[in-house]
């Protein structure tokens, strides 16, 4: 069954124009998603420390699991070709360009001198350019977006522009494709290091036009909150997920009290500034001030976030902000929107699908292998 076993793309251009890159998958109308087979894409690692680029069908069949030297993070499927880019996480220096039908590595893009990757990338809708967030290690932390043109299975550097922030992490296309929303984590690191140079966090959410000019910049009052992940809804609403940076091993041991009871998630509705997304105290307790993947489901207007340190998957209504789900999922990792809800993976345990059942949520364990899934999950439709 080629449709189940391969991440091939047929009649995909129209869908791709809707889908764009990984983080905008939730923008697909529900009617377009119904009844389609898809392939889940994620970076994985095993207990022995081997890293993989992986593709699985939704019913748990392995399409490919390709060993790679560097641990990857986010995934950028090509909008209409059976190709996918897996990006090494910080301070990685490689992007693996795979045939998504069998996992063959077709090319490896190496970081330029004085640059390393931050783990996230996006394709443009035409499938001609790959955008990668990078660290300018001559000025550690200064974020840039490197633009690479795809030419005959190779990526050729074209230009770069500033993210107007420190340590860019996830970024998304704006719905009209006029630019990007970029989560600048704000933590300065040197080349070859994941260690923060200090506990000062200079985080921001910037809107950057395609020509590299700055359109807007938002910050949070909480000085320890690092804006690291961002999702976009079809109406342009942006949601960010924060991770707290603490001096002593990312714990609350130093007695720091977050402003406003914590700003784990923030929201920037159209024409508004970035504001805290209201979370009940009970939702903050136990998540250890750390969110990972954050995803919007446009059809349902739901927002999902994974909290791998708190071992929870949480879902809210984007408009009412009501909490709809608080589910115990150890090392909850990547999340992607699918037909009637979300699929969530785990670094340690089984993967689950959260189904919408008349506006309540039913959790279903999936046949995907348990554990070893990195913090981001993407999808490619057949």
């Amino acid at each position, binding site marked *: 069954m080629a449709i189940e076993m391969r991440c091939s793309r047929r009649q995909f251009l129209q869908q791709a124009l809707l889908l764009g890159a990984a983080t905008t998958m939730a923008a697909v109308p529900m009617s377009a998603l119904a009844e389609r087979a898809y392939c889940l894409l994620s970076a994985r690692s095993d207990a022995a420390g*081997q890293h993989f680029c992986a593709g699985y069908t939704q019913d748990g069949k392995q399409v490919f699991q390709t060993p790679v030297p560097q641990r990857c*993070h986010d995934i950028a499927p090509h909008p209409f070709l059976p190709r996918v880019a897996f990006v090494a996480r910080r301070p990685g220096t490689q992007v693996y360009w795979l045939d998504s039908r069998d996992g063959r590595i077709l090319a490896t893009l190496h970081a330029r001198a004085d640059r390393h990757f931050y783990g996230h990338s996006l394709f443009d809708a035409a499938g001609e350019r790959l955008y990668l967030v990078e660290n300018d290690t001559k000025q550690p932390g200064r974020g840039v977006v490197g633009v690479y043109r795809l030419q005959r299975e190779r990526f050729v550097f074209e230009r770069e522009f500033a993210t107007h922030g420190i340590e860019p992490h996830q970024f998304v296309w704006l719905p009209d494709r006029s630019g990007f929303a970029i989560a600048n984590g704000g933590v300065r690191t040197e080349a070859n290091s994941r260690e923060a140079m200090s506990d000062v966090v200079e985080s921001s959410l910037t809107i950057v036009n395609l020509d590299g000019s700055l359109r807007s910049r938002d910050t949070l009052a909480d000085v320890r909150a690092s804006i690291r992940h961002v999702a976009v809804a079809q109406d342009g609403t942006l949601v960010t997920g924060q991770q707290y940076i603490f001096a002593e091993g990312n714990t609350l041991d130093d007695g720091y009290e977050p402003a406003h009871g914590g700003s784990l998630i923030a929201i920037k509705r159209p024409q508004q500034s970035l504001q805290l997304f209201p979370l009940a105290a009970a939702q903050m307790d136990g998540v250890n001030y750390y969110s990972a993947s954050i995803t919007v489901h446009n059809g349902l207007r739901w927002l999902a976030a994974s909290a791998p340190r708190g071992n929870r998957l949480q879902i809210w209504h984007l408009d009412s902000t009501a909490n709809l789900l608080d589910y115990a999922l150890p090392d909850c990792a990547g999340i992607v929107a699918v037909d009637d809800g979300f699929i969530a993976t785990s670094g340690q345990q089984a993967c689950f699908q959260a189904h919408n059942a008349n506006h309540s949520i039913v959790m279903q364990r999936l046949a995907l292998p348990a554990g070893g899934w990195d913090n981001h999950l993407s999808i490619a439709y057949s």
Partner: protein
Amino acid sequence: MKFYRSLVACCFAGLCGANSALAASLEQQTAEHLVNNIALPAYANWQHNNQVFHTASEQFCAGKIELTAVRSQWLAALHAWVALQPVLVPPSPADHLGLQIQFWPDKRNLAAKQSEELLNKKEALTADSLAKGSVAVRGLTASEYILFDRAHNLADPTQRARYCSLLQVNTAYQLAQSQHILKVWQQEFAQQLLQTPNARYADAMGPLAELLRAQVTAFDVMRKKLGVAIGQPGDGTPQPYQAEAWRSGDTLGGLQAGVMASRALWDGGGWRNLAHSKQPELAQKIDEAYTALQAQLAKLQSPLDSLLATEASKQQLKVLYGQLNTLHLLYEKELSKALGVQLGFNGTDGD
């Protein structure tokens, strides 16, 4: 050995088929032993000790028993809580106990400050007001402040009445928490851990991985609790007021209870059995690490503050810390790898 490691890694990543029947059987047997013979009795023991402690606090507040009697029940409740740590797997996010039961580390003496602030409001305290308030006034740390703080004279009826209002609500809260968790474990969660596959776990390795993570976390917390008190790792400057149970002087007693509980999970049909089937030499190393640690603990019978008063005993505490650290690392690095369990991934090393 190399082949076996590859096999373990392969199975974890879902790269090969089902485990052998023998391996599955041993994993299932281990899970059954850990859940039925260790975890469920530990939860029942914790609930029982909380019941006894709550009753003792009511009797003390009614003037029916002496302070020493209720203090000894506080110690028993602490030890039962410490013994629970290696099997502390929350059935759901709402069951995440942690700070609800013990506020540690209390770097800024919040248990004292916030207890006094709460009592100065002179409002009637209820379980609800406690649940809505700061975690610093809940559980064992606040109760220890009430019962053991040297500034308190609980023989004085006025002081006793003041502190008893918080003590009794607190012990009732702690009891209710333990009753709820015990019920969930007995009625649902133990079955979920043992009867795989189910809605939560794909196979027997899922529950075992959760239990091993709880065990390793318990070691890590024990190591930190001792370490911060004696200044390890670091420049050796002790921070005795950041130790667990410093007011009661039972810091090392709590550690002893934690080590004994971990050993109970190791011995018999526990982790040792599974480890030995995969790497006999690792099982031997962990045996030896336990023996050395427990022998060292047996040497250190005085309260922590008196041990910190002499250079010789400070060195002995440093040895103890090193042994605890060794055991923690054996579990975290070697045992987890031998069992094919990835302890931390995104939660500890994500992005």
